[in-house]
């Protein structure tokens, strides 16, 4: 099953199982079914809980908060995650604050879906990876779609958390298959441990390098660990979490310590990255037990150009991860 289909099924399932859930967004109703078709069939099936919204990102998020405040739950689609900046205030000062600033927790079960990332030639305002700008907001968690994580489970977890959640969906994943049964391909296996997918060719406990990457980067990271295994005989384990923030490195420490080399790969542009935050936690916990500092792999500190040949020079590529692994184990 493709990831987009898993996503669509998850939305269908959530709406079917919980009569309190609403879906809101621009152009999400049938027959269009959303810019990336994630919401296909929803409005035909649940016409009174699937709401086509005007171009009003800020207000859509606020309305979702209102539904939540009144006891329902809401899933918002921001057409391109680039536009979630228009709702930054609603996320930071309205939804997250509503949970936290009234002296007791006010539940605010809202998921804001953010189709994200580049690689499709959509240009500078339709290709960004803005996850990092939402880290460290009390009352807000940041999640990411991955080909390893059943999306329905993710939605259930997010909605049950009672706080607003951003859910980043790397657009390149939509057409990729979901992995099932612990098998990626003839070489790679995976296992879900505490919500983190561990992907490996050989015994992960014996890996010499750990690569941590969100779902959108998983394929590039898998290509990289495959090629360093073949070309350099470096054995890696890839960790793909389902939540970027809060992110607890605790359970991963034994793996990281044994390997002694860590790479964090993400598509964000340079500076103030998620990787830097993960690295700070890892360095604090594993001081003296790593061969060198956590290697951060990310896109260049640049606008993302439209032309494919230019875009490639900016966005994180498999090679960058490969180089980062080599640097980490050098």
């Amino acid at each position, binding site marked *: 099953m493709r990831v987009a289909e898993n996503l669509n099924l998850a939305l269908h399932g959530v709406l079917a199982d919980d009569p309190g859930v609403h879906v809101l967004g621009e152009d999400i109703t049938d027959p269009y079914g959303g810019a990336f078709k994630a919401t296909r069939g929803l409005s035909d099936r649940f016409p009174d809980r699937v709401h086509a919204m005007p171009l009003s990102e800020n207000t859509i998020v606020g309305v979702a908060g209102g539904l939540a*405040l009144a006891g329902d739950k809401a899933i918002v689609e921001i057409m391109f995650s680039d536009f979630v900046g228009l709702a930054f205030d609603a996320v930071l000062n309205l939804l997250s604050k509503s949970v936290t600033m009234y002296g007791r927790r006010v539940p605010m079960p809202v998921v804001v879906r953010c189709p994200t990332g580049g690689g499709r030639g959509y240009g500078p305002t339709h290709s960004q990876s803005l996850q990092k700008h939402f880290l460290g907001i009390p009352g807000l968690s940041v999640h990411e779609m991955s080909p390893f994580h059943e999306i329905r489970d993710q939605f259930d977890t997010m909605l049950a958390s009672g706080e607003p959640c951003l859910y980043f969906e790397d657009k390149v994943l939509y057409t990729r298959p979901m992995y099932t049964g612990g098998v990626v391909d003839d070489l790679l296996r995976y296992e879900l441990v505490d919500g983190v997918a561990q992907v490996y060719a050989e015994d992960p406990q014996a890996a010499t390098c750990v690569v941590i990457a969100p779902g959108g980067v998983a394929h590039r990271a898998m290509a990289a660990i495959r090629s360093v295994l073949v070309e350099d005989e470096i054995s890696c384990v890839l960790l793909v979490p389902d939540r970027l923030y809060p992110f607890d490195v605790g359970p991963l420490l034994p793996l990281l310590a044994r390997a002694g080399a860590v790479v964090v790969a993400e598509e964000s542009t340079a500076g103030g990255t998620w990787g830097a935050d993960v690295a700070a936690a890892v360095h604090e916990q594993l001081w003296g037990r790593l061969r060198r500092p956590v290697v951060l792999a990310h896109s260049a500190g640049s606008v993302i150009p439209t032309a494919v040949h230019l875009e490639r020079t900016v966005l994180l590529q498999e090679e960058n991860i490969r180089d980062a692994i080599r640097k980490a184990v050098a």
Partner: protein
Amino acid sequence: MTAVAVEPRLTELADADLESLLLIRHFEQRLLELFSAGLLHGTTHTCLGQEYVAVAISGLLTDADHVFSNHRGHGHYLARFADPEGLLAEIMGREGGVCHGVGGSQHLYREGYLSTGVQGESLPLAAGVAMKLKRTGHGGLSCVYIGDGTWGEGAVYEALNLIALHALPVLVVVEHNGIAQSTPTARQMAGTIAGRAAAFGVAHRRIDSVDVAAIRTELAPLVEQVRTGHRPLVVEFATHRIGPHSKGDDTRTDEEIARVRAADWLPRYRRDHPEQTARLEPAVWARMDAVAGEVSARPQSTWERSA
């Protein structure tokens, strides 16, 4: 916003309504005194002169309704809950505060009531709640208080468009006091509030009166339309901010301040109903004395941090 030339006699109110009006007034005057005495920190925005708006509106609301308030919200809260202890404790950070001292003056939450200090945020939230209220079908509405200056914020228009499109039971109460912080409305707003409502096909009613009973009579059928007809409504009160924006930051001219003071409903009400006012006001004073004394003596609030 021009001073009322002919002042008809104000309708005599039920004691409870007058008490509510007086409570708000004396609560806030007490606040300013506490601030001057250095007993309060942070900031506060009083609604001196505008109390009748909240009292008039609250009389039209039911328990099924949700109120969304703003920075200038003490009147909205007190008119709804008559809870000066909880509010003062909140503002003073004492035990028993509505939000354990976390929210403070501008950030209050109680079942069916929410305020926040970021202008423009409340309308989308109110629209969302109204979507749910409409589905529930018990005739509840979202009532949102905003100022004239808040019409600068784009969120107001985004939400109004949505409210009209979805025919949501939302009552927008605009307290048009002719000023936003220090800036006169004419320097902030092009066109009119009536025009804005019309732009979205939303009903609008302007209220120039300070007569609580008359206001309620005028608005009652329209509010009923909001509830049962899902016809959203913008009620624009031409009103006057007698006090400073927050504390001591009033840069209006003496003439201007005299002009807004002259529009105060309280001296008029005292004049029109001296006996009732004289009968009730001392009790409100006494209550505020007691509340201020009792709350000031409470220990500091405690709070279990959730996130």
